[in-house]
């Protein structure tokens, strides 16, 4: 590889304006506003400061732009950046997994796109061209692809033709939104109110207290019901909007060794999921969703570009018949029916119920210290017991054909599909309580997993747990790989 590729191209000049617009709220507006707030700056002076800030920001952006160059050589892409300390980064084509193109709303309006050069590395901004014209983005991608096709490297060959796998029309997206009920924004509003308390023309707490005084006797059940209904409606609307902006026009296609996903209403993003980097699949549904036959599929991948917890959504809301072909496409994975999976030990129920005394004690103490009506929660105890009994039925596992299936969750039902060649380590742990009951928890560590999203089988009997751990470790360490390699 020669290091002489000329970095002879610049990103689009409109980027200066784009970045500037993006920075306006935080610098040009917020800082002078802050200054005006702290000192007794007049409005005129504040405007002056804002103008100076604007000029400074524009100049800095222009400098950054003028010092940022990139070039495409025969075997590499070169990026030079930095105003004071210059960095020259060379990314060989061999190392490029793919070229992602993303179009945030502003960039889209002026026909620009962000190009993200995906390598195996963890750094997200390793090869970020922000922003170039859409045509240039497509050209870059074509060049990289062509090089992969011409010189077959460790990567998948250039795709023959993109084959659509999954699409969501507007109706589907809206339906999905119904299930994405979200109350987070209410918390958000309150947090914002609290933060800006000092700025508001009224005092929030006085106001609440007044409300409390004047309406205390009017808290009829009907009023409470109406309030709850209102909150529910707002939550529903928020969920719809969020889903719409994120998943509008969702499209998943398969091309050779990778999946390509496009989605988004305002920010149109295009992400590539390489089948080689795919670690496991997660099929998610809910109590109601399963009844209606809706499932969501996501993949856990190595490296950068993940939405949340290393998971990439592949089909957020689809029928089983739609999800299955995508799984099949993903290195021949499949779903397992609940019927063919083994439930965890029946003592799982006992273990969950063992939390009861603690819960009871907390409640009683809370009632004694605070308000006696807390004890009313005790009425919900049968529900808790029922929940424990049901939870076991939904926690199942199965190891077959070198694929480990783990299903878990009552309200949010998840099915992990893990090719055991991807298991990095197996750990078997037993708390004192589990030892009393002869149970164990198995955890399977995979690459790219988040701590919250580890594949776990909780409360297996110790015997089967040991066997399963051994078997998985044996396959995974290659002791038994002779049969199919």
């Amino acid at each position, binding site marked *: 590889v020669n290091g002489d590729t000329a970095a002879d191209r610049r990103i689009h000049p409109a980027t200066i304006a784009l970045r500037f617009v993006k920075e306006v709220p935080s610098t040009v507006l917020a800082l002078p506003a802050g200054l005006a707030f702290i000192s007794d700056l007049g409005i005129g002076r504040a405007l002056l400061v804002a103008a100076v800030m604007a000029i400074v920001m524009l100049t800095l952006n222009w400098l950054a732009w003028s010092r940022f160059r990139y070039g495409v050589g025969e075997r590499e892409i070169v990026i030079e950046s930095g105003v004071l300390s210059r960095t020259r980064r060379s990314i060989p084509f061999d190392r490029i997994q793919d070229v992602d193109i993303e179009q945030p709303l502003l960039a889209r309006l002026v026909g620009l796109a962000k190009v993200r050069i995906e390598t195996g590395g963890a750094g997200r901004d390793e090869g970020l061209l922000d922003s170039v014209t859409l045509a240039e983005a497509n050209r870059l991608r074509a060049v990289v692809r062509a090089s992969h096709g011409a010189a077959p490297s460790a990567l998948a060959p250039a795709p023959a033709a993109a084959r659509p796998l999954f699409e969501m029309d507007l109706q589907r997206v809206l339906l999905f939104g119904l299930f994405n009920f979200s109350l987070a924004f209410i918390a958000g509003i309150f947090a914002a109110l609290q933060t800006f308390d000092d700025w508001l023309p009224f005092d929030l707490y006085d106001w609440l207290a007044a409300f409390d005084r004047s309406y205390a006797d009017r808290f009829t059940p009907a009023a409470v019901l109406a309030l709850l209904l209102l909150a529910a409606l707002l939550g529903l609307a928020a969920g719809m909007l969020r889903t719409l902006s994120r998943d509008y026009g969702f499209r998943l296609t398969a091309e050779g060794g990778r999946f390509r996903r496009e989605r988004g209403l305002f920010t149109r993003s295009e992400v590539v999921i390489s089948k080689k980097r795919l670690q496991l699949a997660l099929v998610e549904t809910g109590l109601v969703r399963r009844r209606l036959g809706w499932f969501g599929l996501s993949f856990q991948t*190595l490296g950068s570009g993940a939405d949340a917890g*290393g998971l990439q959504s592949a089909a957020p809301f689809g029928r089983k018949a739609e999800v299955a072909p995508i799984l099949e496409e993903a290195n021949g994975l499949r779903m397992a029916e609940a019927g063919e999976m083994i439930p965890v030990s029946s003592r799982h129920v006992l273990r969950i119920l063992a939390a009861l005394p603690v819960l009871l004690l907390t409640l009683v103490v809370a009632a004694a210290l605070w308000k006696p009506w807390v004890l009313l929660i005790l009425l919900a105890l049968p529900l808790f017991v029922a929940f424990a009994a049901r939870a076991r039925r939904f926690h199942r596992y199965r190891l077959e054909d070198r694929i480990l299936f783990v299903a878990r969750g009552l309200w949010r039902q998840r099915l992990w599909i893990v090719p055991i060649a991807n*298991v*990095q*380590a*197996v*750990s*078997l*742990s*037993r*708390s*004192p309580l589990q*030892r009393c009951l002869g149970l164990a928890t198995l*955890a399977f*560590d*995979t*690459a*790219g*997993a*988040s*701590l919250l999203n*580890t594949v776990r089988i909780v409360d297996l009997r110790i015997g089967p747990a040991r066997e399963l*751990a*051994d078997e998985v*470790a044996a396959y*995974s*360490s*290659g*002791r038994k790989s002779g049969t199919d390699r």
Partner: protein
Amino acid sequence: MRTHALLAALLLILAASTAQAILLRTFGDQLAVPRGLVMLALLPLLFYLVFISPGRRYRAWGYNMADSELQLRRGVWTQVHTTVPLDRVQHIDISQGPLERMFEVCRLVLHTAGTMHSLVVLPGLDRNTAERMRDEIRARIGREPE
């Protein structure tokens, strides 16, 4: 499991006694009046921390280097048994803190690509064992490229 009982236990005792000193200092300052009383109440706990727990913790630790995997076992209350297939090891460190240098022990750190167990630490080995294990694992990684 090879025996480095004394060394590891000493290490743990040292750690525990430091913790104890900190405990003593904080509690002594805060509660001037019933000083003796609080200490009395804490005594069993401290006794456990210093004299019983290190031994038990040490005994709970164990490892087994099998042909193709490393097995680790640890934990007094919650017992954890971890299996790391050697193929999955990305790279290996041997590390030694100042205390560990004092007692001439070191720890073997295996890095895997996973998240939960991206670092698998095996403490309290003597230098020779650690180096030998490292070489074994390294050979194993080298033997099977992909």
